């Protein structure tokens, strides 16, 4: 499994979106999120975006008030994951128009669907923005 989880966390450390590709109990998730957030939020702009944690790596990137954190296996390509995060943000930007934390809060399920289009079972399956958004727009129209 390449990607183990995708987290979006705001500056205060509150989780805004959490998608896990392996099953963890609620307590494990909470503990994990706590540890990661503490580690990553303390870092500044001049430091690199990769943190080793337990037996995997976390690749993170900050956009305005929101941190995007992706947990990946050790041999995953870090730069590619950074690009993946950027792609995710661009996709949301295109859909919501200048996406902000509130958009994700109030349209959490949409954010999830975008993510689901992009990542299946920990593998990145789709990297084209329009391919990701077409089904979501279709679903919007029908419902």
């Amino acid at each position, binding site marked *: 499994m390449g990607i183990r989880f995708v987290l979006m966390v705001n500056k205060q450390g*509150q989780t805004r979106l959490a998608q896990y590709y392996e099953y963890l109990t*609620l307590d494990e998730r909470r503990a994990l999120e706590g540890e990661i957030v503490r580690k990553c939020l303390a*870092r500044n702009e001049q430091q*690199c975006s990769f943190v080793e944690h337990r037996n995997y790596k976390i690749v993170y990137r900050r956009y305005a008030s929101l941190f995007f954190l992706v947990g990946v296996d050790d041999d995953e390509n870090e*730069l*590619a994951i950074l690009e993946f995060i950027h792609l995710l943000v661009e996709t949301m930007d295109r859909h919501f128009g200048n996406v902000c934390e509130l958009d994700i809060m*109030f349209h959490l399920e949409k954010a999830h669907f975008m993510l689901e289009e992009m990542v299946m079972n920990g*593998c990145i*399956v789709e990297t084209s923005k329009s391919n990701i958004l077409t089904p979501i727009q279709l*679903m919007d129209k029908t419902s």
Partner: protein
Amino acid sequence: MAGSSIMENLFQRTLEDLIKGMRLQLIGESTFISKATEEIRREIKSTDHHTKSTALLKLCYLSAVHGVDMSWACFHVVEVMSSSRFAQKRIGYHAASQSFHDDTPVLLLITNQLRKDLSSANHFEVSLALECLSRIATPDLARDLTPELFNLLSTARVFVRKKAIAVVLRLFDKYPDAVRVCFKRLVENLESSDPQVVTAVIGVFCELAAKDPRSYLPLAPEFYRILVDSKNNWILIKVLKVFAKLAPLEPRLGKRIVEPVCEHMRRSGAKSLVFECVRTVLTSLSGYESAVKLAVEKVRELVDDQDPNLRYLALHVLSVAVPEHLWAVLENKEAVIKSLSDEDSNIKIESLRLLMAMVSESHLADISRVLLNYALKSDPEFCNEILGSILTTCGRNVYEIVDDFDWYVSLLGEMATIPNCQKGEEIETQLVDIGMRVRDARMQLVQVGRDLLIDPALLGNVHLHRILCAAAWVAGEYVEVASNPFELMDALLQPRTSLLPPSIRAVYINAAFKILIFCLDCYLLQNEGSKYEQDAGFNPRNTTESFDDLSAENGIERVATHDQTITPTFVEKKNFMHESIVNLLNRIELIFGPLIANQDVDVLERAQNMLSLVLLIKGENDNSFQDVDKKDTRVSAIIKLMRDAFTMELGPVSTSAQGRVAVPDGLVLKENLGDLHAICGDIELPSSSSFSTAGPHLTATSDASSSNPLINEESGALNESTSLIEHRKRHGLYYLPSEKSEIVTDEYPPANDPKSNSNINDEASELVKLTEQSLLLKKRTNQTKPRPVVVKLDDGDVAPISVQRPEPRGDSLSGAIKDVLLGSETGPSMSQSNPYDKSSRKQKEKKKLGTNVQSEMKENVVDAEKPDSENPNSSGKNHGHTRERRHRGKEKIVEGEEHDQRGKKKSGHRHSRRKTHQRAKSPLNVVSQTPEIPDFLL
């Protein structure tokens, strides 16, 4: 009823209301959440689908973001999943993938629902089901739904197909038999022209190959084609990862791919792709000089980049190159050293690792010195990181790179006095270990121990207690090379020792005991010798003076004496004053008096021993000291005996020592410890720790499988070793490093360390100079004395645990894949040992020839294929690149086959029929020849 549901519907809060409500709650969020959950519990029971699904949606939100438990709602999830309206179904599926896991009871109920949706004409429904399956599939679900997935793998709807491909990964994992059904179609997808499909399928193969690369060697031509043809960076990165796994298994593969990889490295503008190429070259193609050069060139660009990400990755990838291409690191050493003062702690740690990898005998001292200075200025975490890496590097392979132990021992002493030092246990282990192994270092060791012991300030620091423990032990054990035993005694008896924990205090008391015996012994010896010349001996004024010049004289004596353990320098030169001995005895009595009421039995017992001895001697002494001529022989006999007991030298213990202990007659050792389960079933046995060191200096890590008959079971061996590895990982400190050990750490120091930046540039430049000098001269020129002897045991006392690579998980999976790719009859042993298990037509042809003896009909088929197989150039363009390699592979295989053939011909008809079958299963149909061969697999 209907009315009430409408009411519910009207007054139900939507998710948006919930979120808005939550945002208004500045405090008391938890009460708000519990209220909302109560509300949801009520609403979710509604018969109205809309109300129900909205309630579930809210619950999902609360669960995902606020960690509310939603396992209780699993039945409702199933209900919503089966809704006919897509919007509601979507909510249900989302909830299922979010909350279901292997133990969810209702999983049995959803099989049919999933099957229905997987075969739905609406591809969004199919997509929902696939998405859900990729998260929650259990072995049962995987088994039951394999046929549906098989159909989807070749569907024309790319939107669905790519998702089905991704699900296959989980399917194989949970239900390996699915491989037999789906693998062929999966492979076909590799040839798809649609980049979406290829992205998905290469992702799957990347994951599969990571677990068991050997099984996928036959697919190398397909991967090669993607590597050469694809323009998509995502795909290229994944395919590079696959090759990084495959290339080490098949030397000729490396030769093929090295050129295209370099091409990508030169051409691509995408940093991620370039970096992946670099990593692939350094990890898997390190034998290709020109490629490595190019990769190192790229690394050099990255290592000086503005972007900390690139700097970090460059350092990281350099550490991969260390074992085979140290020069690559040396070339970048300036950047590495500069990074030691980087703002980012992760980068600092990487550069520290690299620096330690560069260290060699010749400049160990210089680098350690500079690093210690860094450590003094760094924040506690990085400081300990530095100390830890110095300790592991120097201690590697029984102090392989340490030439000058006097220097190293002093360095250890110095480390102990660094305020932030928390490496007490490692330093303790090494101090004791060096004491036992390196006789020449003992004098310096005792000196260092003395310096540590007499400093009362150190006793207050808990992190140093272990070091003091080692120092006390060393002082007691090697007191004969001490410059001044009385001083040591004073240090051991100082009042602040009450700050020590009892276990260490006990060591202190024991050390004091040894020193006392030594002093008494010396005194008696001296008296024996100078019985008749009682000139200065009993002059009390001499006491203090004699100690002053003692050290000077001893300094000269050192070299001469340290080979003799028993002959004390002290006795020959100086006199143990009667008065000083009496004083000493009195002091001991005074100080240990209160200790016999100590709570700790260890302290209590040892103090009691000491006191008894003192009382005994005092009683006797009163007489003997009055009249030296009639010296009591009883006391001297006792002292002699004790002294002899202590002069036995302690050495390092072999790891297999335990195995040499003969099992006494009549002792029956059970082979199996299964009975223990009955007794302590629910207690988790700390199996690993029982093999760890018995004492810090013993290193009695018994080689579990060989030495201990109790654990000889085969089945236990694997668990055993993994648990050992696990244990080693956690308690690495207690293990002597067995091989080139990297410092593995979970800790990351906080972001910035304000103290560290002062002066750091000077340091860096100094270090650069140092390494420059020392790296240039390979051998140390000013070596003044030869390296002392380090005691090592023949049968390897250091590395009992070979760090086994974990067995590839999921044997059943790889077995199944091998079956599919290679034909089941080839058998696992052959496919494993034979590196040429490439697909080949010739191989097939041979097999067919074998069958031809019996069946005329098949001959036609063979004839039809023959020309093709003999003229490799005639086949499709796609495989052109790999043609030559494959061809060579064929010839090798043919030999094996012929050999095989002889045996088989004899056995006749049935065998050949089986062969035909095997041919059908053999990888050729899958890999190279799709259309002509009928699909026997299905």
